């Protein structure tokens, strides 16, 4: 028997938990899954990566080891975007894909700063950092109004976000970077970094060193709080934990946002232009960890302030 998992028509961080809930309830019996994206008309990089994570997890959990099915979007422009973003290239080994896919390689489109790219080892992080510096510098300056010097900081933040996979996930993952109009609150351009894996997640990674300290409070939310707010790491090396702290410093400077979802919790450092919730627990379980980083367009040399928020 095949179980249906509906892919939200607008698949981004706001609808992620809806997708996670559908995925969690469909995977209970180890049956083959059908991810139905035929009606999809928008997916953010985080949505695309979430779908890959679910596909990988479904393949691992399947009693028959059959590939899950994926009904591709039917709208031509949506298909075209998913292909440009490199989604189908990474999805091919994870899903039995049904639908008419565009032919050819992902294009070098200006909005896709980095197509969906696998991250399995340190060499992949080098490749990502190298590519983003070649590709993103001009776009970050011209579209986001970021000081050209901020490009290197952007590469640093990207490197550290990807290293979370290499150092902690216990499996591979993906990264994607894209600029687009952030319609919800800002009505201006943002650059989004999305990093996701189907690995062990923050709670499992930190449990040996942190669970006792948190006692009864220990869980996914406490693990995320320990990692992002307190800067702790599973390694006893005192130099560890610099990565997320560095990302936070970079985002504070450019008024950016970070949100991390792992297991049943999600934590966010929320800038004044966003209305996200800082910490949510008791969410539908989802494999691994998913990191979302947003850097907004700067105007008049400043980050987005309260006065610029449009709702």
């Amino acid at each position, binding site marked *: 028997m095949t179980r249906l998992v509906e892919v939200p028509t607008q698949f981004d961080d706001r609808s992620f938990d809806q997708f996670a809930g559908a995925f969690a309830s469909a995977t209970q019996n180890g049956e083959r899954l059908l991810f139905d994206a035929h009606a999809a008309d928008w997916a953010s990089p985080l949505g695309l990566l979430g779908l890959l994570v679910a596909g990988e997890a479904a393949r691992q959990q399947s009693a028959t080891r059959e590939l899950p099915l994926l009904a591709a979007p039917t709208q031509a422009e949506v298909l075209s975007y998913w292909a440009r973003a490199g989604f189908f290239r990474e999805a091919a080994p994870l899903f039995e894909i049904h639908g008419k896919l565009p032919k050819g390689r992902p294009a070098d489109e200006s909005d896709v700063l980095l197509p969906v790219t696998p991250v399995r080892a340190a060499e992949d992080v*080098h490749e990502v*950092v190298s590519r983003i510096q070649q590709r993103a510098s001009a776009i970050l300056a011209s579209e986001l109004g970021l000081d050209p010097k901020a490009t*290197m*900081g952007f590469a*640093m933040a990207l*490197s550290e976000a990807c*290293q979370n996979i290499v150092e902690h996930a216990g499996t591979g993952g993906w990264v994607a970077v894209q600029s687009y109009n952030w319609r919800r609150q800002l009505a201006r351009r943002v650059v989004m970094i999305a990093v996701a894996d189907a690995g062990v997640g923050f709670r499992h990674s930190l449990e040996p060193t942190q669970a006792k300290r948190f006692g009864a409070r220990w869980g996914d939310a406490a693990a995320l709080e320990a990692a992002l707010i307190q800067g702790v790491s599973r390694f006893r090396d005192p130099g560890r934990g*610099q990565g997320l*702290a*560095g990302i936070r410093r970079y985002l504070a400077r450019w008024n950016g946002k970070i949100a991390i979802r792992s297991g049943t919790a999600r934590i966010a450092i929320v800038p004044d232009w966003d209305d996200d919730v800082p910490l949510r627990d008791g969410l539908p379980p989802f494999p691994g960890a998913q990191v979302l980083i947003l850097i907004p367009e700067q105007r008049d040399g400043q980050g987005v302030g309260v006065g610029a928020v449009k709702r």
Partner: protein
Amino acid sequence: MIQYIDVHAVLRQSSAGEYGDLVTRSTGRRVRERIEQAMNAGAPPVIARMDFSGVGCVDYSCADEIVAKLSRAWGPPTVLVLRGLTESHREAIEPVLASHRLAVVLETSEGALHALGEPSVGTALLEQLVALRFATRQPGGTLALNAT
């Protein structure tokens, strides 16, 4: 004794010439180990002058793995003097050092020496260089290395 370390060249040797960026823990570890091999080859240097010219991105992991760990393991008596740093290199290295209450000496393109990291530790390093006559105060009040 002053030991000169071309960090970009060490990075190229450590990565078979593939990379120009100091990113990831494993790359940082390989680069640090090669630097330590060089520093262990003779008598401990009084100054390890690390030139970052030509290095692209430095991330926080590499800043910790290379600069913080060398600083902890070698200095003092060895003073790490970093030159060829871009602003973004500093942005990665400085908070990592400060979080460990460590410091190194920064040599600007004009040759002026400044503390980088924990101020009190950095000031002590600068005083050490003056006391050992490796640095002198210039007419404008800044410090500079005597032997280049």
